[in-house]
């Protein structure tokens, strides 16, 4: 067996081409992997099964290009931006490109996931090389046709030109190109020559979205499909004792009712009958361990104040720094659980028969989910087919295939194709929440400098992932200790847009504001000074770039006019690196009727090369507003295992009349791109909290701000 070196692609395995029976050329390629040598491309586009490659480009005889976008689309825009990268290197007019959502390849894929803002970053090189390789093959085919050397041939905008001025369209040579050897070491464009990348491309599904065409999981239909609704224990820690389905079965349209695990499925011919059938169920629940927010608060504060915990990073000698300090600042920051609240409630289609398993719907992790369904049904993963639909939001919730597993189990038990549909109440209460987390942060100050920094995290169920302890201020403060501890709850938790950093950034960026105040220093200058301490490259665990961070801080301060504050406006600053992207934000607020109103946010972002400026701007603006909304209003607590809210009458999401204007400025860069689905969100809460402090003198230590401000109303008004 040949061993592959880490740094080179086995191009032979990574790209294959084939002539299509119906005309045109098909290019299959694998993301991330050099993959197996024996992979064969399918020969008929109509019968693509995606078993060998995970992405395809079809070039038709007329030169038009279809790009099958492999990564799930949850609103982060990759269905537009990933094909743009291919089209750039292939050098075709963007108007000649048609994008289709690809299905799942359970065999070879290692990254067909929407999560962690990684789609663009991980696939940048592969997408470029694939486009460039295809272009080179077209050039080679034209050169052969003209019987000249390929070096005398160039291609641009879908047209191949010889030095002597002869031209051919891509479509004229696709058949010949498909039969050629796949070339190696194809040159890529220099960023300054990009024509598609860096220019606005509208969302590829825009027309369908604004005219209401079926796109989403909830729109998915198959003949003979029944709708399933599920009754789950109303509280975490409850199990099903018994139930009476007499009234439920009387509802017109209800076709079946049965128990699976501690849940009850109601099947019906349509959604409304399923809803009514579920409502008519009478179930009795057994109380086991019922947990409450009050208890969690006690437990997490207990952990923060105990010696329990894992050290995640330790530099220098924090104890000595604290012992020698002139001043110590010590604060605790607290966050609630949060539900994801994708606008499209969870749903999934499943048809489980003895011959096959067909799944379809909105899922951020098609491969992992197929594997879990296979495991549940005792089948091989390749027997599971997953069709991907557009998703009405993800935010982490659709990383978890729990709803797909439920759908498969119900279909298997019922012996019918079914679509499981969550009500909003199911969606908000079925679990997998952003965990409630508390941070204790302290700093030692001496001679006008920060000499030591301690951060401890106490969280429900799990802790910050491995890279986070190496985010700022690691490397910027000589004596530093990051610890974490958790309490295992029966309330299910998971990733929520910018996991951990969505609250950690608020805590730290509020804390540094307070440090700046204690040192009588400007908040922006303090951050720049701290970043000056970083010896870049000296510690390869450090995730952020101090120089890139300083650039976004300076740009945000400049564009947000940090040094000038008009009457009645108060500003707050925040800067945070997450998901490989550096962001700084200036929030401006006013006080209206004793409460803060966020007027404007200015964000500066370094995500490397910006693929699609309109999409990139949309992601950052949305992330900022989402971050402000949840910091201001997001409240979700438990009493006796039961969530405090179950629909939008009791759970407050930010609405248009509460939104500030967000201005986004990108650093002009030729560095490989990183993601944008998440990084705009983490700094927003801190920027607003610091502006509220500037306006009211009040330091916010808990989210949501509205609740915390109301609890301390007299102080705010004072």
């Amino acid at each position, binding site marked *: 067996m040949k061993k592959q070196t880490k740094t080179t692609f086995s191009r032979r395995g990574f790209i294959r081409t084939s002539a299509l029976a119906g005309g045109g050329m098909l290019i299959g390629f694998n993301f991330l992997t050099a993959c197996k040598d024996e992979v064969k491309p399918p020969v008929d586009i109509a019968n693509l099964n995606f078993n060998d490659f995970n992405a395809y480009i079809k070039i038709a005889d007329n030169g038009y290009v279809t790009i099958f976008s492999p990564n799930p689309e*949850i*609103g*982060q*825009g990759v269905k537009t931006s990933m094909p743009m990268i291919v089209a750039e290197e292939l050098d075709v007019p963007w108007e000649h490109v048609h994008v289709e959502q690809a299905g799942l390849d359970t065999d070879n894929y290692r990254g067909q996931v929407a999560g962690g803002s990684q789609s663009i970053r991980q696939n940048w090189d592969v997408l470029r090389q694939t486009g460039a390789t295809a272009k080179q093959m077209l050039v080679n085919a034209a050169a052969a046709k003209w019987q000249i050397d390929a070096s005398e041939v160039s291609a641009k905008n879908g047209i191949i030109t010889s030095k002597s001025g002869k031209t051919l369209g891509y479509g004229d040579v696709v058949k010949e190109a498909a039969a050629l050897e796949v070339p190696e070491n194809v040159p890529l464009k220099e960023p300054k020559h990009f024509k598609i990348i860096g220019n*606005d491309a*509208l*969302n590829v*599904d*825009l*027309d369908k*979205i*604004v*005219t*209401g065409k*079926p*796109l*989403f999981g*909830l729109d998915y*239909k198959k003949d003979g499909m029944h709708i399933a609704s599920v009754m789950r224990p109303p509280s975490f820690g409850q199990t099903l004792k018994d139930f009476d389905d007499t009234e439920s079965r009387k509802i*017109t349209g209800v076709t079946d009712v049965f128990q699976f695990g501690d849940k009850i499925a109601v099947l019906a011919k*349509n*959604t*409304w*009958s399923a*809803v009514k059938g579920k409502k008519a169920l009478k179930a009795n629940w057994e109380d086991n361990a019922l947990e409450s927010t009050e208890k969690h608060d006690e437990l997490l504060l207990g952990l923060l104040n105990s010696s329990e915990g894992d050290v995640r990073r330790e530099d220098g000698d924090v104890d000595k720094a604290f012992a020698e300090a002139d001043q110590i600042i010590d604060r605790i920051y607290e966050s609630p659980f949060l539900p994801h*609240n*994708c*606008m*499209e*409630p969870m749903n999934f289609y499943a048809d489980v028969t003895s011959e096959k398993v067909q799944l379809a719907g909105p899922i951020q992790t098609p491969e992992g989910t197929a594997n879990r369904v296979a495991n549940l049904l005792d089948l091989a993963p390749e027997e599971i087919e997953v069709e991907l639909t*557009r*998703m*009405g*939001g*993800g*935010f982490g919730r659709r990383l978890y295939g729990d709803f797909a597993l439920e759908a498969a189990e119900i279909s298997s038990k019922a012996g019918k194709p079914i679509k499981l*549909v969550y*009500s*909003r109440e199911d969606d908000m209460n079925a679990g997998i929440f952003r965990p409630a987390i508390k941070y204790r942060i302290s700093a030692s100050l001496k001679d006008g400098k920060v000499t030591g920094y301690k951060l401890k995290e106490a969280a429900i169920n799990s802790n910050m992932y491995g890279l986070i302890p190496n985010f700022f201020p690691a490397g910027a403060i000589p004596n530093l200790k990051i610890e974490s501890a958790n309490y295992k709850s029966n309330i299910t938790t998971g990733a929520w847009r910018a996991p951990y950093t969505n609250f950690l950034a608020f805590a730290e960026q509020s804390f540094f504001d307070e440090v700046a105040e204690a040192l009588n220093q400007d908040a922006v200058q303090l951050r720049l000074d701290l970043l000056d301490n970083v010896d870049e490259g000296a510690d390869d665990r450090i995730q952020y770039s101090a120089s890139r961070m300083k650039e976004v801080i300076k740009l945000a301060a400049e564009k947000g006019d940090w040094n000038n504050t008009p009457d009645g406006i108060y500003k707050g600053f925040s800067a945070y690196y997450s998901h490989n992207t550096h962001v700084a934000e200036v929030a401006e607020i006013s006080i209206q009727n004793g409460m803060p109103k966020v007027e404007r946010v200015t964000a500066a972002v370094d995500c490397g090369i910006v693929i699609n400026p*309109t999409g990139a701007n*949309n*992601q950052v*603006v*949305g*992330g*900022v*507003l*989402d971050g402000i*909304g949840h910091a201001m209003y997001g409240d979700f607590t438990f009493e006796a295992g039961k969530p405090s809210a179950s*629909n*939008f*009458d009791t759970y407050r*999401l*930010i*609405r*248009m*009349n509460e*939104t500030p*204007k*967000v201005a986004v400025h990108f650093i002009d860069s030729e560095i490989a791109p990183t993601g944008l689905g998440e990084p705009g969100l983490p700094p927003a809460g801190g920027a607003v909290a610091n502006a509220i402090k500037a306006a009211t003198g009040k330091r916010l230590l808990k989210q949501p701000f509205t609740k915390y401000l109301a609890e301390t109303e007299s102080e705010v008004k004072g």
Partner: protein
Amino acid sequence: MPVYNLMVNGKSLSVEAESDTPLLWVLRDELNLVGTKFGCGIGQCGACTVHIDGTATRSCLLQISSLEEAKITTIEGLSEDGTHPVQVAWKEHDVPQCGYCQAGQIMTAASFLNSNAAPSQSEIRDAMSGNLCRCASYNRIEKAVADAAEKIA
């Protein structure tokens, strides 16, 4: 099951449904008009917004039995080919992120601009505040509504 005669997007249709079925589910399940979205079922999010006799209404709260005389317009019937000024403005501003709530946003905006052709910014913000967008595409929605108003005028 009772049969109801409905006027949807300019066509008369008859539908068999239980009398308490919300219009939302009649549209989605029986008439295959899935552009109208389910978001909350209690009239709080606006994803299911349609026009009843030209006025934006939450279809999740509207029983089919009350609609026999009504003129129902859904996103599919707002224009023949996606060229209603609000739809055009939505495209020009590249508004959607995930896109799920947008049909409801567009229907709210179109009805609002019918009743107020020259809205102020704060009138737009108030009028659109009944529609939730978890992606928070609100800045662009606001601009698109203002632009659509100019297109109509």
